């Protein structure tokens, strides 16, 4: 009698498809460069998606000292909500403009109902309780939207592709993700370093008791920050659905672990670290999947290289993380105040 288990844990949709760089071994022609640039952009795009998730997660950890495994659930719920609205209204913009704020509200609600009491608890309690929330949200999505998930039809302007100089053809959605992600990163930087709210966030991060006793409404601030993280996760969910054209149950579980890898490498609590680490992880993961077998062929026989490459490339970011932590146990950019 086997335990009924879901097949939720698929590898995230490989943006590159089966290794495109495998043809024409040894000859570096213009074709190779085009492929490389394409893969590089894919990696960049994946990294930026990871950043959208990692920023919220690392903010929540940095300020509230909360390990939130359920961040991936907000990513999934955000995707489902946005796609539902797009399906209902037929307008991508409506999905974006209603769905993302809605995810903000859901995040705030989750914070108020379930997570507020966890701030005073230890990390084990937080991990376990937010694990419980994941189970709830996954089943909830199954219940409301059915087991098959939702498919997304992109509007024409995002569905096509863009030709960059040098005959490099990139799907428009990927360019959109890179642009949107960079815009969000810039907005977040502005918010945190230039605005009143950002000042409060920084104050809360360096000493929340002090900030509280100076009259900052810490409860409200925490809810806002959590909602902000949820909204960014929801946006990432919608954008990711744009590339895979399907919102599916458990999509958050695949990516949340990679997000954790990002914030651990970057140094938990550091947004700058999250940005750098997200780009690195995105590139390492994507380029590893396409070029690792080529690299291994330099040292091993063709057959051995082709056998080992898929396993090794799937493990690459974890090996990278282990290496970083072995050298710098606090991550690349350890926050100064903790």
């Amino acid at each position: 009698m086997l335990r009924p288990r879901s097949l939720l844990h698929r590898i995230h949709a490989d943006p590159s498809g089966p290794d495109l760089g495998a043809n024409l071994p040894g000859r570096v022609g213009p074709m190779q460069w085009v492929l490389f640039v394409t893969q590089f952009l894919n990696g960049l795009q994946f990294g930026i998606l990871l950043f959208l998730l990692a920023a919220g997660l690392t903010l929540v950890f940095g300020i509230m000292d909360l390990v939130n495994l359920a961040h991936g659930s907000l990513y999934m719920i955000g995707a489902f909500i946005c796609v539902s609205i797009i399906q209902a209204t037929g307008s991508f913009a409506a999905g974006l403009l209603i769905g993302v704020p809605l995810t903000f509200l859901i995040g705030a609600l989750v914070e108020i109902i379930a997570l507020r009491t966890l701030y005073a608890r230890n990390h084990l309690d937080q991990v376990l309780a937010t694990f419980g929330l994941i189970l709830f949200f996954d089943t909830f999505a199954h219940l409301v939207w059915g087991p098959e998930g939702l498919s997304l039809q992109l509007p024409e302007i995002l569905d096509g592709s863009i030709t960059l100089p040098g005959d490099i053809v990139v799907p428009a959605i990927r360019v959109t993700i890179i642009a949107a992600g960079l815009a969000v990163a810039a907005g977040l930087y502005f918010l945190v370093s230039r605005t009143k709210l950002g000042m409060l966030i920084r104050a809360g991060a360096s000493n929340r008791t002090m900030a509280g006793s100076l009259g900052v409404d810490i409860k409200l601030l925490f809810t806002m920050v959590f909602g902000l993280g949820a909204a960014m996760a929801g946006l990432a969910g919608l954008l990711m659905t744009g590339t895979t054209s399907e919102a599916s149950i458990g999509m958050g579980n695949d990516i949340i672990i990679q997000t954790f890898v990002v914030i651990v490498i970057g140094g938990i609590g550091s947004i700058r670290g999250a940005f750098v680490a997200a780009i690195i992880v995105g590139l390492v993961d994507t380029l590893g999947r396409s070029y690792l077998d080529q690299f291994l062929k330099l040292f091993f026989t063709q057959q051995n290289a082709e056998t080992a490459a898929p396993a090794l490339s799937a493990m690459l970011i974890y090996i990278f993380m282990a290496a970083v932590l072995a050298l710098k146990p606090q991550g690349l950019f350890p926050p100064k105040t903790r």
Partner: protein
Amino acid sequence: MMSTVTQDPPANALARITLRNGFYGALLVVLALVPLAAQLAGAGNWTSFATQILIFAIAAVSLNLILGYGGMISFGHAAFMAIGGYSVGIASVYGLNNGFAHLAMAIGFSALFALVTGAIALRTRGVYFIMITLAFAQMVFFAFVSLEEFGGDDGLTVNSRSEFAGLIDLEREPTLYYTVFVVLLATLYLTHRIVNSRFGWVIRGARSNEARMLTLGHPVYRYRLTCYVIGGIMCGVAGFLFANYANFVNPEDAAWTTSGELIFMVVLGGMGSLFGPVLGAIVFFMMEETVGSIPIVGIYWKIFFGPFLVLVVLFAREGIDGWLVPRAVKASDAALADAIAPLARRLAAMLIDVALFALSAWLLIAVLGGWLMTLPRQPYHQDLVMIACVYVFLAGILVNHLVLPASKWRGSAGKIAMGLAVVGGDGRTLAPAQAVQRVFGQVLTIATALIGYVWMVADREHRALHDRLAATRVVVRGRLK
């Protein structure tokens, strides 16, 4: 919770017979008789189900050594399950069916993996440790997913179970069960010896105060690593057994949800208690099996399990093991002695609660269920209504038996109606944890065919098993000073 662990064992052997030890003794006897009972009842799948529970109990006990005693929050323990399992699976692909070789490989690879990953992970602290153990497990998961020649993410069928040179025939279900049972006993004994040795005290000391242990000159890092490796090996053996049990290995064995479930078993059973994780495993699988077998609701059992987990974390951190230790109670409480509720009123209050329960259950199943069945089967929308109603039903039970007694109302609806109140020492309102322990006592009473109520009749203060556990008394409201 910890006081039960750190106490010196009483010198008098009779003094050791507490409710808790008696419960565990009875549990072991029941576990030893499972195949026999299954045979008599003609229910062969009981043995199979119990085998699965005990295998996960071994894994949970091994995690408890690391997590409960060592204070190392490993979120990647399931990796060892998979490593142990694939030791059997991959060997049998190459036609190697020797059980001794399988076991040696399961132990060897688990130990190696624990040594290498532990050496890196233990350099980190707190949340970094949680994340890095999670990442290492994920690495194992993806490695097995990518190994296409060994089944990839479809998993790998193990054609024949490990052969022990004709000594043990694992193909027979009862033999497999008793093998697992003996391994569980051995794991428990070993854990007991480890945590009570000098080594174990250093590990536990480092959990409460690492700096102090270092100052005393103990090499904490090395001790922790050793503890981590021992726990990993034990879990590797569980994985070896699981592959034999299921005839199948799967990357899912290393999935982080499995690690999360193992942590849940440890926490529910009681961290840092010897038998707690066994109880946690039993309750987890019982819940999964019973809720999972209810039509419609069963498909969505995790929508109940998730919030349950949150509630356990928020209100039940002592775990089941902690509930089995009666709360300290004053021998006699003069202020309460006059107010003790007479049996008849208690019975009436109970009947009201039972009637409320039965009525709402009937509304839920017969009326609502019947009505839903008549509707055209719209995918999911019916299910949504169904689950929402079950939620309301469960919330009602929760409010009646936990929230109300721990609030200023001080009793369930039946007790309020009969003018009774449940109070702790000195007539205080129950703490949430106390109310939880009282409900656990009631469940225990019901599960043991109401034996706990016999106590109530015999006792001068009419305190049943659950009142004794939670140190509560049922009193008449009006007579309370």
